[in-house]
């Protein structure tokens, strides 16, 4: 082993190579995180804007006209802008915050740290991955200011709506920019994913067998595999869409009469796009949720001072979810005219996913049973995650059943379901991760705990306040993506509830600034942790020095002797045994868990 550590430490790094074009995984993690936070604020602000319209449809807000000009004439958002907002809110949150912001941050931070590597397999590719993401971000951000607005055909960009500027103004330049940005985003994701898989497979330190890896790494590993295998389908879908939009082909378009003229395209199939899109789109929700599951497993175990319950079962359930995630996509298309027989097959496969998910939930609950729980802000969010994952998971059993889906498809019930199970859970996982690994990100500084508690309870209450009532609205049959409900006597009876939801959304959004203030102020004012290992955790990252340098460990990379979950082991001196501690004589005689 070459003593490369000596180099890293003494390099005179220029500002640019240290902070901008850094190849250090820790810096790249920070870059992903901060870009993700900025996108989170933008995406959240969009939801506040369209919630204003939904909550108080008859009210005028002069400030909107000041800020948005012709998009909010007379202080009320126009329908075209409303649809642009929901489209961009979805795109930004799903891809830019919960894929890049979550996976990008924690995969980069944790993989080399927790498996004991000096950096990623290819630091250069890793840097490029961020900069492609940044470029995608810049283009997507620019598209918000186009004269005809950004893409407005829904984040699922179903053609023909997304293919025809005549159908909605956002499908002109806005859609072109969307496609370019997403192509770059896909490239970024693929570069990242390749790196994550290879690093995990090939660069683990001595003794770090696959079954000794923390569950965070397992989760990120499967996330990366899903990404590498499913994003290409979106690329293919987008490629054919680009040809339909710009070169007059007819992959998706057929028999269209719009804007007073009959288009020449015949023989295309919009359903083909939906198949290709959801072949990515469904795995994508697991790309979002799996890293959060990994983080939560780690945080729950550490702060309950108990080994994660059913480590192998956790791995098998992630494996099962990964496998199934590729063969359930058509459950988004039960009502698209799909052959009913195919529909029933997809119903069966979809419902099966509930089994590994249930196993995970029970294992998490068993993990805190008879634990010795410390409510750090990270732990609070991890418990919140389990709660939202259950609440959103059970409604998945309704929607996965194609019979019930006839009624619930594209109603607010769906909005409630996927926001609770995917958006809330993933963002809770992300918060848990940030609070937990903040000392590793910022040189041993801790985030302010009491502000963290406040942030958690404010978020939990308002989040359920926003999304729980949507079940009721959905059970009343109200369709989603409606600019206003006033025209329908069936749908217009929820003004009070919608105002309540909007109020919760605004308070919840404001509460996120508690986190943002905490995050940025703690960089400078945060309490310095007294030890290297503030949470008394077992994993390898807490053996690295506080000051970052490229290469992570000043000496040799420590050797690993046991799994990551020896908490409160009987006979041990402390209630934790770091992975670097060699096995004792007695332990060697035991059959499992090292």
């Amino acid at each position, binding site marked *: 082993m070459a003593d490369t550590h000596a180099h890293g430490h003494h390099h005179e790094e220029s500002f640019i190579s240290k902070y901008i074009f*850094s190849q250090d995984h820790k810096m790249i993690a920070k870059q992903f995180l901060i870009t993700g936070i900025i996108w989170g604020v933008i995406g959240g602000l969009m939801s506040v804007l369209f919630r204003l319209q939904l909550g108080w449809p008859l009210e005028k807000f002069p400030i909107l006209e000041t800020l948005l000009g012709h998009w909010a004439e007379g202080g009320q958002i126009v329908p075209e802008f409303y649809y642009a907002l929901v489209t961009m809110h979805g795109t930004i949150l799903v891809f830019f915050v919960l894929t890049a912001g979550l996976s990008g941050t924690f995969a980069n931070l944790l993989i080399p740290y927790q498996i004991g590597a000096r*950096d990623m397999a*290819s630091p250069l590719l890793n840097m490029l991955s961020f900069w492609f993401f940044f470029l995608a971000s810049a283009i997507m951000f620019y598209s918000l200011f186009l004269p005809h607005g950004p893409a407005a055909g829904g984040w699922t960009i179903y053609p023909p709506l997304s293919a025809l500027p005549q159908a909605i103004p956002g499908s002109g330049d806005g859609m072109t920019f969307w496609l370019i940005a997403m192509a770059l985003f896909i490239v970024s994701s*693929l570069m990242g994913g390749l790196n994550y898989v290879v690093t995990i497979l090939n660069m683990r330190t001595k003794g770090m067998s696959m079954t000794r890896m923390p569950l965070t790494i397992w989760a990120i590993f499967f996330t990366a595999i899903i990404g590498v295998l499913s994003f290409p389908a979106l690329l*293919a879908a987008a*490629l054919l869409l680009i040809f339909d939009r710009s070169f007059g*082909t007819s992959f998706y378009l057929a028999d269209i009469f719009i804007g007073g003229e009959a288009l020449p395209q*015949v023989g295309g*199939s919009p359903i083909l796009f939906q198949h*290709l899109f959801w072949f990515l789109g469904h795995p994508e929700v697991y790309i979002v949720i799996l890293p959060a599951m990994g983080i939560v497993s780690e945080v729950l175990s550490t702060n309950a001072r108990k080994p994660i319950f059913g480590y192998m079962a956790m791995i098998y359930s992630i494996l099962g979810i990964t496998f199934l995630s590729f063969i359930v996509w058509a459950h988004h298309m039960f009502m698209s005219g799909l052959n009913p027989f195919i529909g029933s097959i997809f119903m069966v496969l979809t419902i099966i996913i509930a089994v590994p998910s249930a196993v995970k939930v029970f294992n998490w609950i068993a993990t805190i049973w008879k634990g010795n729980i410390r409510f750090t802000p990270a732990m609070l969010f991890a418990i919140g995650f389990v709660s939202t994952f259950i609440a959103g998971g059970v409604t998945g059993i309704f929607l996965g059943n194609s019979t019930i889906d006839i009624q619930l498809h594209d109603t607010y019930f769906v909005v409630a379901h996927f926001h609770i199970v995917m958006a809330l859970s993933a963002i809770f996982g992300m918060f848990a991760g940030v609070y937990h690994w903040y000392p590793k990100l910022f040189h041993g500084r801790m985030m302010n705990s009491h502000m963290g508690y406040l942030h958690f309870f404010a978020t939990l209450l308002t989040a359920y306040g926003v999304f729980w009532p949507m079940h009721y609205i959905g059970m009343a049959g109200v369709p989603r993506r409606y600019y206003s409900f006033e025209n329908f006597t069936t749908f217009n009876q929820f003004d009070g509830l919608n105002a309540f939801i909007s109020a919760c959304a605004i308070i919840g959004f404001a509460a996120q600034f508690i986190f943002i203030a905490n995050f940025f102020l703690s960089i400078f004012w945060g309490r310095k942790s007294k030890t290297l290992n503030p949470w008394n955790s077992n994993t390898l990252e807490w053996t690295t020095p506080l000051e970052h340098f490229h290469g992570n460990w000043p000496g040799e990379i420590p050797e690993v002797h046991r799994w990551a979950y020896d908490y409160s082991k009987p006979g041990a001196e402390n209630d934790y045994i770091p992975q670097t501690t060699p096995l004792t004589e007695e332990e060697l005689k035991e059959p499992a868990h090292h």
Partner: protein
Amino acid sequence: MVGSIKIEDQSAVKKLHPHKLMLWIAIGSMTMTFAALTSAYLVKKAHGNWMDFRLPTEFLYSTLVVLASSLTMHLALSFAKKKEKSKYLSFMFATIALGIGFLMCQLAGYKALVNMGIYLSDNTTASGSFLYVISFAHAAHLIGGVAFLIIMFFKGVFSKTFFENTLGVELTSIFWHYVGVLWVYLFIFFSINY
């Protein structure tokens, strides 16, 4: 240099160099792109409104050319491993030439298609458009491969330590074979389906 950290051979699994593994996974990813495109083709064909036509023979020539280039690539790699510079360079040159020849054949193929009245922007059926788009996507990958070949060729000419470590050539060769195999698959796929 920040990027100067060597990748230590830390793993218990020492069989595969990380970059090679990465390439293999990338190949898996690229395969998924083409799997998606070709299954879209099949779905669309089953859906109807399809025009069958004979694949121009030019595409058969391009298949032969790409197979020949795989052979020259293989020889170039074996000479690189034996550190025989001039033989390496000549076979690399041949591979590059064959790669460009392949692209020429494809262009001739498109020309033949146009003469048959099959255009990219055919808005009555997607059957021709699929051939164009999928082969464009393949050509884009192949052009990337040619770029790597050219880099490896000039590295062979100028770099003094080039033959110490043949990893670059190996990676290029794996990718080149993949692009070749990919085209053979696409050719068979199109031949069966038209």
